[in-house]
């Protein structure tokens, strides 16, 4: 028998989770969790519904950042005028996830807590230096995304904590972001690799002032190498520079094998798609149709 709890505040939710310890599961959109439940892979004593929690269901702009409530669905981000205006590439990333039904149900909090490697939004979060806001019995804390996602389906959350918001700093004006999702089987496949690239040009509108590249679905957690990114600073993003960045990422990422591609193939795809993503971001930044 599984108890069903409907807390009306974050405190109530945290208290309920704390009370049950490992035996309770928070549920919001209930996509991944339902699969685990029905296959008997998790057998909780209680489900704690987050659906009724206040102040977690909207996207706000605060201090040059978007503060996204954990209950906001993928579809809501995909279609949010605010996100489309401030961070269109983030909206595009969410738009690429699964299908419209899943996007209508799955939440930001859900995708963060799940830490599924074959996922699109976490790659964007890493590139955008997002910060995860978490509430627990000890209070609230902010965790940079790189520290939040720890490994396969493993996060910094304790069993009594929930994600409440995601804060995504809005990059400086003139930053062009793109998300490339590469699938190897059907159009509905999960990513073999996903690359989020953002380019901000210098005042000459030609050389690169800032490059950000995050690669997801190729290893346990999304990867980003600031030392490789800075190689581009001050340089024109020509073939050589881009190739250096792409090869750098390909050499550094320990790729995994799964049904979407072998480790060898993924390494090659890191090379290809980092290059393509950076090229496209550069072209968007320069105002050229890609």
């Amino acid at each position, binding site marked *: 028998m599984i108890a069903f709890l409907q807390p009306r505040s974050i405190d109530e939710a945290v208290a309920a989770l704390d009370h049950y310890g490992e035996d309770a599961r928070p549920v919001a959109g209930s996509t991944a969790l339902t699969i685990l439940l029905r296959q008997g892979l998790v057998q909780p004593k209680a489900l704690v519904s987050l659906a009724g929690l206040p102040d977690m269901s909207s996207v706000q702009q605060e201090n040059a950042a978007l503060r996204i409530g954990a209950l906001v669905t993928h579809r809501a981000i995909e279609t949010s005028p605010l996100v489309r205006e401030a961070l269109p590439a983030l909206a595009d990333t969410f738009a690429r996830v699964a299908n419209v039904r899943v996007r209508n149900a799955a939440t930001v909090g859900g995708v963060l807590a799940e830490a599924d490697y074959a996922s699109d939004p976490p790659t964007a979060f890493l590139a955008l230096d997002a910060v995860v806001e978490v509430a627990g019995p000890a209070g609230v804390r902010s965790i940079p995304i790189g520290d939040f996602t720890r490994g396969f389906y493993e996060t910094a959350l304790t069993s009594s904590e929930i994600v409440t918001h995601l804060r995504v700093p809005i990059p400086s004006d003139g930053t062009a972001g793109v998300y490339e999702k590469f699938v190897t089987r059907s159009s509905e496949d999960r990513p073999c690799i996903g690359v989020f690239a953002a380019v901000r040009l210098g005042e000459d509108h030609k050389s690169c002032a800032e490059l950000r590249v995050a690669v997801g679905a190729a290893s346990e957690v999304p990867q980003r190498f600031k030392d490789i990114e800075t190689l581009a600073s001050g340089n024109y993003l020509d073939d050589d520079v881009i190739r250096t960045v792409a090869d750098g990422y390909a050499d550094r990422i320990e790729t995994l094998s799964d049904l979407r591609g*072998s480790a060898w193939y993924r390494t090659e*795809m890191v090379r*290809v798609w980092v290059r393509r993503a950076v090229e496209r971001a550069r072209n968007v930044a320069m105002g050229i149709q890609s």
Partner: protein
Amino acid sequence: MRAIGSPVADTRFVGRRVPPSEGQQRTSGRLKFAIDHSVPGMLHARVLRSTAAHARITRLDASTAERMPGVIGILTGADLLRGGIKPTYGPVLPDRPLVAIDKVRFAGEPVAVVVADDVDTADEAVRLIDVEYELLPVYVDPEAATAPGAVLIHDTVRRRELITYPDLILNTDAGPNIFNHFKLRKGDVDAGFRQADRVFEHTYRTPQQQHVSLEPHVAICEIRDGRATVWSSASSPFTARFQVAETLRLPQSRVRVVTWHIGGAFGGKTYPRIEPLIAAVSWRVGGRPVRLEFSRAEEFYTIARHSSVVSIRTGVRHDGTLVARQVRILWGAGAYADISPRTIKNGGWAAIGPYCVPNAWIDSYAVYTNTTPAGGFRGYGVPQVCWAYERQMDEIASALGLDPLELRLRNVVHEGDSFSTGQTMRDVHVEDLLRSVAQRIGWQRPLPAPSHARAVRGRGIATTVKGTVTPSTSTASIKLNEDGSVNLLVSTTDIGQGSRTVLAQIAADALDVPLESISVAYPDTDLTPWDQTTSSSRSTAMMGGAVRTAAESVRRQLVEIASRLLEVGAADLNIENGSVSVSGAPARRLRYAELIRQSRSGNILGHGTHATEGGLDPETGQGIASHHFAQSACAAEVEVDLDTGRVHVADLAMAAYAGKVVHPTYAELQVEGNAAFGIGQALMEEMVFDGGQVANANLGEYMIPSLLDVPPRVEVDLLEDRSGDGQIHGLGEGGAPVVPPAIANAVSAACGAAIDTLPITPERVLRAVRGL
């Protein structure tokens, strides 16, 4: 639609796009499937499945589970040893235990079945059953299973006294883990190879694949007073009746199988698997009604397509004429025989392809493997061999410097040619179909520019013929009611092919009544007469034939009655438009309803049987393989991304010989559906086994084509013979086999990557492009 032969008088319904049956129900969610059915007081079953791919069961303890409140009973192998029911089943060789007895032979094999008041309780109880396994070596592919020293998966090959199908050829002694060997010997293949200017040898591989019918297998069984009723997703109710009767040791008259619409079959529901199991489960709990529905994951452990290793050796002259072909096929048939002995025969004789090859030698082996049992699957062996012979044709063309289309045109069978089985080919139009798809893909036109600098484009072509099970039999009954309306009693199941519309069209024309007056019954083995199967693209032709014969019987009886009532000889009577009238005196007429009432007949029952003859010699494979051949061709244009190996199907042209089209829209749907199916086989579908475990038993990991994976336009050319003698040619399967080789040939033309293993994944293409 293109026609050959000049058309005869317009039929009223056959040939027209009449509204589909049950349109309102289909679009309102009210179409009935077995998965919707329930029976008062029914219990619920869940299956405990083996986690080992090949092992002895050393311990099975269900005592804790048995004691759980809400658990009614648990079926285990021990029950099967106590007698009462037949422990094993199978449509050809009864080698498959209902639940594992002492050994498991594939991961996912049923080991026990829990019956409980509800599904949740059954699920919990399953988790409480303790099983211990002593692992044995696991063979996933047929090469490993037939290698010297391989452990036998079955110690003996069980047989049955009666041969269940007249076209069966059994040769079960061909080697370890081989349970059937089909041979074809034509001409003198050694002499043929000596005459050849060039000899080509290649090996091609395909994996096990899944049908992915969206409706899973589901069945309910109740046994009352020695009569068993099974409501199920079976797509051939009489094969299910046969098996359940054998399992329960009941005469067939006391077994009733009831079906409605089937949510997709593609060959996966033609032969019974869930039905004998649920019958045994109901028997185990004293005949109480029990329902069993498989999850999608369980589908992966129920039935699959054969994997294959096809070694094909072909001798040709410099001008490309084929003079000899030798093919050896190892079929990965899974852990139990199922219908494999037949599938491998079908794939066997088809392995020469639609070509004139005077000297042929084929060895086709069904091999046990520790994987999900393989059975009928759209194309029935032809897709695997077509992959091989159509890929090799392109290799040959390339080596000889010939256009791949030209090479094929030089060798395809024409009217009067001798087929691999020595059968004289009639009504074959392969050349026409090839030219059609070549023309519509723009074979001679320059390729359009690729969409980006790192992409290349190419075109490929492929063709095939596929038979229909021969000999075979269908029967139909027509009940003409006292008001002139008609009940059509047929056991063809509507699996999506539109049989309920098509057979009604045929009946309405044959009886000369309005289409709306025909009501098609749902198959019920107590009430609808025997049909061999809904499979093999046979129903429109075979059941259509039986319906026409039944209609003739009804018409004869109507004329007989009219002759008596009107006191006129039968020869002076006309039957048309729902009535019988005197020739030359049209006012002297009686409507069907009046004939029935005035003669106090109650109703008129007409029965018809339609049967075909044929068969092959067990030593030479020569004879009549098929009553007629489905024929198709495909041309594909692809774009290959040279950096990723990803293949995009830019354009697809399909052509099929339909003989006679009963419903043009349904005919198109079959060919379009085959195109989508073929794209799946070509680019994305494979069951992945990890040491015998299915690694991708869900639709997030086993991918089937979506709307975006199929080109927005699929050109379909249906060639028809309108002369009135047109033999209906089934369209259900011919299209799928040609799509993968056409795509692979296009990939090869585009970038030189010669892919020999399905599916054509980006990684395989990239490795080939890079020469790795």
